[in-house]
């Protein structure tokens, strides 16, 4: 049955990595998923994309609907169990699996969730800390000056700070010009941005202006939620800064339109 088939893209001796694409990459930014596969394969991993994946359930979870999420969380845990590692191109979705699933699920499922959590990583952490990825045999990808947005869940739930910067150094020979107040939330917050748009608008405005003030041509980040928020605001205000996911930068995939830009 197709929906249960698992696709292994690069047979080899490396660890079996299950890629959880995340719903936002699946729907709005497939290049993030394709570039993730490429980065993982270049690092010697056998990549499997479970075809029955959808969403980790954060929207309902953050809204407080724990009941609806429990069966979904179990389904995701069961789907990911065969992997050596689970990798996600998102700090907040990785945080959901690593921290919130185990807190939400009880008894046998709690144990299973903990086991999956132990092998689940956000992609820059995985590349930098676990497989210690090196730049493939090619010259560094030249980039305009870039600034980086640390997503809150990545930063505070998973401690992601140095990893993306190290990778940008390694793959692109680029240093990040840090934006002021870099550890303050961009105002996305899942459903928050739609429930409290005015407050969220003020927060993303501050973030965008701090990013623009660095003079960077690209704002990169590891979480599509934040990036869609910031890119959308940049479009609204007419601020010329390209917003891209870090996986695109690491693969030099810069020809297509940035987030929110037309073809």
């Amino acid at each position: 049955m197709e929906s249960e088939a698992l696709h292994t893209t690069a047979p080899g001796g490396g660890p079996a990595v299950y890629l959880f694409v995340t719903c936002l990459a699946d729907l709005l930014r497939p290049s993030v998923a394709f570039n993730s596969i490429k980065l993982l394969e270049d690092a010697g991993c056998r990549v499997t994309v479970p075809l029955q994946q959808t969403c980790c359930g954060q929207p309902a979870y953050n809204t407080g609907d724990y009941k609806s999420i429990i069966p979904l969380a179990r389904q995701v845990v069961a789907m990911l169990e065969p992997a050596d590692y689970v990798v996600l191109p998102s700090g907040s979705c990785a945080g959901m699996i690593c921290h919130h699933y185990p807190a939400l699920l009880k008894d046998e499922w709690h144990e299973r969730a903990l086991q999956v959590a132990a092998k689940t990583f956000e992609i820059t952490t995985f590349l930098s800390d676990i497989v210690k990825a090196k730049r493939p045999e090619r010259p560094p990808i030249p980039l305009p000056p870039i600034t980086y947005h640390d997503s809150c869940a990545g930063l505070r739930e998973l401690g992601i700070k140095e990893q993306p910067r190290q990778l940008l150094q390694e793959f692109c020979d680029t240093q990040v010009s840090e934006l002021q107040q870099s550890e303050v939330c961009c105002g996305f917050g899942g459903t928050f941005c739609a429930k409290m748009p005015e407050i969220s608008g003020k927060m993303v405005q501050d973030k965008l202006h701090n990013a623009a003030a660095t003079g960077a041509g690209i704002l990169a980040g590891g979480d599509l939620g934040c990036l869609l928020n910031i890119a959308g605001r940049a479009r609204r205000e007419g601020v010329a800064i390209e917003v891209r996911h870090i996986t695109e930068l690491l693969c030099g995939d810069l020809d297509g339109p940035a987030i929110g830009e037309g073809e």
Partner: protein
Amino acid sequence: MQQYSDTFLDNASAALADKDKAEVRDAMALFTPLVRNAAMDQFQHFEELRQHVKQVRQHSLDNLGHYLESYEQQAVRNGNQVHFATTGDELNSIVLDICQQHSARRIAKGKSMITEETGLNAFLERANLDVMETDLGEYIIQEAGETPSHIVGPALHKSAAEIRQLFLDRHDLGERELETTEDLVSEARQVLREHFLNAQVGIIGANALIAENGYSMLVTNEGNGDLCANLPPVLIICTSVDRILPRAEDATAMLRLLVRSATGQAQTCYTSFYSGPRREQDIDGPMETHIVLLDNRRSDILASDYREMLQCIRCGACLNHCPIFASVGGHAYGWVYPGPMGSVLTPLLTSLEQSQALPNACTSCGRCAEVCPADIPLPDLLRDLRHAEVEEKIAAPRWRQGLKIHAWLARQPRLYQLLTGMGIALLYLLGRKRGSFSKLPLASGWTSQRDFPSPQGRTFMQQYKAEHKHRE
């Protein structure tokens, strides 16, 4: 205090529209975390001490009955009269009774969030008492007829220019100048001094109650607490039952985190321990002292899943680090306690229905929990309150239903992929040229503030499956 949390969104909207005030808030949002973080960097024992303080707080709360009893015994032995108030109204009546027993007309009051919670000032004023706040910030907002915007700095929302204007309007200045900030402070001092000397009753709060010796501890930077406590013949200390700590050393351990977290100082200018009324050999101090301990639903919180909230030591760090507090200011929250701690406490101390927006005023960014010296998982507690809103059907039906359907759909991969595939294909078709939408049905919240980026093409799942079919 009167509550208007139910209009949080409107309050927030009005606050955002006031550009001058927004500037003051932006400056505070930069400054307050800076001083706190500098103090912690120097201190270097934050995590260690935080775990210790958390344990002490949890232990005290786990044995609240026991420690309250020994506190009461010790305090009575020291010559205090101890009163317990179940509700805010009860506290107010106890305090008024004491004032009336002494035919008091003038009350000098130190900063106390508990009496804000019970609305004590208004209550005493209705009985024709002349109550004057003596903490500079509290004095300013009392003059302005406002309520505190912050639990540590009640007047942080006010600029020096505003305060100058306020004093010009309210005070008969005579020869006195209000040019500099020093002038403003000495103006307030002049007015307050006179009141201290003539008050018959002093009312203060407490940062901790020490069970082993029956003392209460208070920290201030102005010394006004000590003047309230020592000049009038009668002293009333109003605080809540959860302030209890077993030993004096627990109070000082807490202090090391409290002050750094609050103002970035290693110590406040004044740290006072009040034992009771003047003893024979004392040269000053009140003749009579009362301690009024408020419960106001704290026992209920203790018995609930939100009990960690009672570990709070009222430092205000979570407010200072909250981007939502920074955006809208304390008044928008519509009651005594704003920011993350207030968004948890307000629904618990009042009602979830009346304050249902507050638990939603959170992006789960986690900055508050990161700095909280009591290690309270504030974002988790806020999400649990949202859970309660879903369970009690307080949450807006459109969110409840919509996300329930989404969660269900996410469990049906084939259907999910089919539907999202169709939706995304359509969005891509409409949005590919411009790259984003400035309006989108069902997403008006999003598009009111920002464009919605168009999808990059067909969904990943569609593309990936097609590719693999092709390969096979």
